[in-house]
């Protein structure tokens, strides 16, 4: 495939395509530790030490690092509050942790050598990490839903209240409940694949572009694109998890009453309504 020039120059060159998962470095008992684990530990140490250094000896007049940390936390808190109101602030720690961890990992995938040499592999470019985070978020928001709504939480999946309006409506409500139940499971899958596909696809794109464009430096615009995509994907993952929390803790009964009579005079609010996500 491709051209082989007389001077031995080959176009396109052989690409070193990054692997879709991390490679196993060593094994303790039944658990294998991969290079993605190692990089994840590095990310955690990095973020943790920044957090400790920034908050150690906090002062009334903050230094540069403390100022930065305060700005970041305040910005995230304002963002969460603008989406879910005061009650969503309870989920700020999870939201912020997911956001910072994912964005740092995504940006690592752009750094040269990470994903190319054996010991370093961006954690979010390995779908196991993403699936673990998605399962964690899934368990957490289901627990929150049960804690808030008790047993009436399952009414969104097994809703037999429609039968009092006739069998047809009843069957439709049951079907909608089934679709909701399956979409809960697909949420984990889509969260995982969206993040992994973007980060891993970005890595492949950078490798292929720097091979095809003769000079690796010509691929720099794509590095900028990847940095932007990394930020957006981190935001999207954390934002979707936050949305699932907000959807889980809001009762379905009130919503139906609200929607049935107030549809005509409802002012379209500029804020995100969780229903737009529920449709997914």
């Amino acid at each position: 495939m491709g051209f082989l020039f007389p001077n031995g120059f080959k176009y396109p060159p052989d690409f070193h395509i990054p692997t879709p998962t991390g490679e196993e470095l060593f094994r303790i008992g039944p658990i294998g530790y991969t290079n993605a684990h190692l990089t994840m530990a590095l990310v955690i140490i990095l973020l943790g030490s920044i957090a400790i250094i920034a908050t150690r000896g906090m002062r009334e007049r903050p230094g540069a690092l403390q100022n930065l940390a305060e700005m970041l936390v305040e910005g995230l808190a304002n963002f969460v509050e603008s989406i879910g109101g005061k009650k969503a602030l309870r989920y700020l720690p999870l939201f912020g942790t997911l956001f910072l961890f994912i964005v740092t990992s995504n940006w690592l995938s752009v750094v040269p050598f990470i994903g190319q040499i054996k010991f370093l592999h961006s954690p979010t470019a390995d779908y196991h990490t993403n699936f673990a985070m998605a399962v964690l978020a899934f368990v957490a928001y289901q627990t929150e839903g049960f804690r808030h709504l008790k047993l009436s939480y399952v009414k969104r999946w097994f809703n037999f209240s429609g039968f009092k309006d006739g069998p047809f409506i009843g069957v439709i409500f049951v079907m909608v409940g089934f679709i909701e139940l399956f979409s809960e499971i697909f949420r984990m899958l889509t969260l995982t694949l969206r993040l992994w596909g973007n980060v891993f696809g970005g890595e492949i794109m950078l490798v292929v572009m720097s091979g095809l464009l003769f000079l690796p430096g010509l691929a720099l615009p794509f590095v900028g694109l990847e940095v932007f995509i990394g930020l957006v994907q981190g935001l999207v993952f954390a934002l979707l998890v936050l949305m699932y929390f907000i959807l889980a803790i809001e009762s379905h009964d009130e919503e139906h009453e609200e929607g049935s009579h107030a549809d005509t005079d409802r002012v379209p609010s500029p804020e995100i309504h969780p229903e737009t996500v529920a449709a997914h």
Partner: protein
Amino acid sequence: MVWAGIGAGLAIGFGVIGPGIGIGILTGLSSEAIGRNPDAGAAIRTNMILGAALAEGLGILSFVLGILLWTRIG
């Protein structure tokens, strides 16, 4: 084997058409909305990014399918 490679390419190519159209419509309409009401720009932009990510998720699914086919080949 060769057909699997063509299939992988076709899966990505066709699978990206829908999300492409979707994100185009989404971005166009939100630009229009921001132009009409610049004060609501931040909220519209957040909504737009969220919707774009959801639309893009479908394209990513086809990408994953392509990757699966491609790893089968070789």
